[in-house]
C-alpha cells in the first residue's frame, strides 16, 4: 500500500511542474496544457484524499473538475484561435498591447 503522502507529494510536484510550465513557456497552447497539468494534479489530490478518507466525495469532485476543465478548453482554444487569426502567432509575449 502506497502511503497517501506519496500521492500528495506527487500531486504537489505535478502542480509545480504545471506552474513552472506557465512561467517559462511562451506558446499559449503549451501554457494552456500546463494549466491542464495543474488541474490534473489537483484531481490526483482529490482522488488520493478521497481514497484515504474512504469518501466518495473526492471522486465526485474530480468529475466536476474535469467538466470545468473541458469548458475551459472550449473557451481557451476559441480565444487562442481568435488571437492566432488576427496576429498569426500564439506567442503570448507578442500579445502586448495593453500595458502600464
Amino acid at each position, binding site marked *: 500500500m502506497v502511503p497517501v503522502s506519496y500521492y500528495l507529494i506527487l500531486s504537489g510536484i505535478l502542480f509545480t511542474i504545471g*506552474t513552472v510550465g*506557465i*512561467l*517559462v513557456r*511562451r506558446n499559449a497552447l503549451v*501554457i494552456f496544457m500546463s494549466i491542464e497539468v495543474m488541474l490534473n494534479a489537483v484531481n490526483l489530490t482529490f482522488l488520493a484524499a478521497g481514497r484515504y478518507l474512504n469518501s466518495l466525495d473526492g471522486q465526485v469532485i474530480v468529475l466536476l473538475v474535469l467538466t470545468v476543465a473541458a469548458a475551459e478548453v472550449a473557451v481557451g482554444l476559441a480565444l487562442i484561435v481568435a488571437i492566432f487569426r488576427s496576429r498569426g502567432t500564439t506567442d*503570448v*509575449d507578442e*500579445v*502586448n*498591447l*495593453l*500595458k*502600464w
Partner: protein
Amino acid sequence: MLYQAWIIPILPLLGAATNAFLGARLGKRFVSLVACGTVGLAFWGSAWVFADLTRLPAGERLAMLPMYQWISAGDFQVNFALQVDPLSAVMLLVVSGVSFLIHVYSTGYMAEDRGYARYFTYLNLFVFSMLLLVTANNFLVLYVGWELVGLCSYLLIGFWYERKAAADAGKKAFIVNRVGDLGFALGVMLIFVTFGSLDYQDVFAGAPQMLAVGSVTATTITLLLFVGATGKSAQIPLYVWLPDAMEGPTPVSALIHAATMVTAGVYMVARTHALFELAPFSLSVVATIGAVTAFYAATIALVQADIKRMLAYSTISQLGYMFLAVGVGAYAAGIFHLTTHAFFKALLFLGAGSVMHALGGETNMLKMGGLRLKLPVTYWAFVVGALAISGFPGLSGFFSKDAILWQAFASPRGGIALWAMGLATGALTAFYALRAVFLTFHGESRLTWEAERHVHEPPSSMALPLGLLAALAALGGYLGLPHILGGSDALGSFLAPVFLDQANTALETQAPGNELGLMGLAVLAAFLGMGLAWYFYLARPEAPGALARRLGGLYALLANKYYVDEIYGGLVVQPLVALAHFLGEGFEIAVIDGVVNGVGRTVAASGAWLRRLQTGFVRNYALSIFLGAVIVLGYFLFR
C-alpha cells in the same frame, strides 16, 4: 463741568468726524471753523474744569468719570473711564491751549493745500487722542490714547504722502513707536497680572502694599513703561524717528513733535510716579537716559543746517531734561518744564514755519540770513523763543530749567554728574538756539534772488498765535516762580496733591545759598553759549568752517548724527529684511512648500515608476501570482 469733562476730548473727535465726512464738500471756511471751534471749546472746557478744580480743597481735587464697560473677559474688567485731577487739568490746558493756537496758525499755513480738510481731520483726531491720553483713568485708556497719538503722528508726518521722504518718515515714526509701545504694553500686562486691575486708583493705592521698594516686579514694570516713554518721547535709544518726522507740515511739528505728543512719556512717568517711586533703579535709569539724551541730542543740534531738524534735536534734548527731572523725583518740575517747553518750542517751530512760509518751504539755514528786517514779527517771536529755551533770566525756560537743575543737584536721587550734564546741555542749548537766530535772521542774506522777492510776513492768522505764544514763552515761567525768588511756585503747589506722597523733603534741608549759586552758574553757562554763538556766527562768520575743518572727525560724527541711523540699519533693519527674504523666498519655497510638494511629487513619481511593473507580458503577471503565492505560503508555513 468737572463731571462733564468727558465732553472735552469728545469735541475734537466730533470735529474730526465732521470734517472727515463733510469737509471736502463744505469748503475751507467751514473746515477751519469746525476744527478751530471744537478745539477752542475744548480749551474753554479745560479752563472751566481747571477753575472748578481750584475751587475744591486741595485733597479732593479728583473727579472720576466712568463711561461704560469696555472690555471684560474673566477677571479682566476694564471700563472706558476718564478722570480729572490737577495733573490732568494742567495737561488739558496745555494741550488744548497750544492746540488751539496751532489750529489757528494752521488755517493760514495750510490755506493753499488741497488736503485741507484731511489735515484738520487728522489734527482734530490728534487733539482727541492726546486729551484722551491725559484724562485716562486706567492704563488701557492711556494706552489707547498713546497709540492713537502715534497714529495721528504717522498720518500727519506722511501728510504730504506724495513725497517719499514724508511717507518713509511716517512709517519710521510709527514703527519705532510700536517698538516702544511693545514695552509699554508688556508693562501694562504685568501691572494687570500683578494688581489684577488696570485702574489708576487700584494700582497706585495697592502698589506700596503689594510691592516692596526695589522689588523686581516694580523695577520691571517701570522699566517696561519707560521703554514706551523712550519711544513716544524720543529718548535714547528710540529717538531716531523724531528728526525724520520733520517731513510733516511745520504746525504739526510744533504741535505733535514739540509741544504735546512727545511729552506724553514725561506725563506718563509723572502719572505713574507711585510705581516709579518703588523702583529706585528705574528712576536712576530714567534720569540717566534723560541727562545723556539731553546732552547727546544737543551736540547733534549744534551742527544741523536744517532749521526744523535742529529744532527736532533740540526737542529731544529738552525732553531729556524733563526725564532728568522726573527721574530725580522732581515730577512737578518736569511738568513745569513740559509746560514752558510747550510754549517756547511751539513758538520756535511756528516761527520756523513762518520763515518757511515766507521762503516757499526752504528749511536750510545756510540759505537764509538777514531776514530780521523783512520778517520783524517772526524775528521777534523767534528771538523770544530762542532766549526762553536758552534760559535767559526771566523768561520761562530759565525758571523751569533751573528748577530741574537745582533738583538734579539737590535731590538724593540726583548728583553732581547729572547736574553737570544738565548744565553743559544748557550751554549747548543757548549756543544752538542763538546760532539759529543769527544764521536765519542776521548777517548777509544768502537767499536766491527769486526767493528774496517773495518774502512776506505771515497773515494775521499766523502772526496772532505767534504773538500769543511769545507772550506765554516769555511769561510762562511765572507759573512756577520758585520760592527763593519770592515766588509761590503756583504750579508746583497746584500739582502737589498728585505728588503729595513723594514730597521731596530732602530739598528743604539744602541751604538756600546753594540754590542761588547754582542758578548763577546756569545763567553763566547760558551766556557762555550765547556768547560763543555770537562769536561764531556774527562776529567771525568764517570761524565755524575753520573749526569744522580742524575737528573734522568730531564734526563729521555730529553732522552724521553719530551714525545711529546707519547703525540701526545695519544691526536691526538689514538683518531683519535679509531674514525675511530668506524665509519668504528661500525657506518657504524650499522647505515648507518643498516638503508638501515633494510628498506629492514622490507619490506621483512612484506611480509613474510602479506602472512599469505592469509590463504587458502575461507571463510576468503569472510570475507575480506565483511569487505572491510563494510569499503567502511561506508566511503560513513559517509564521
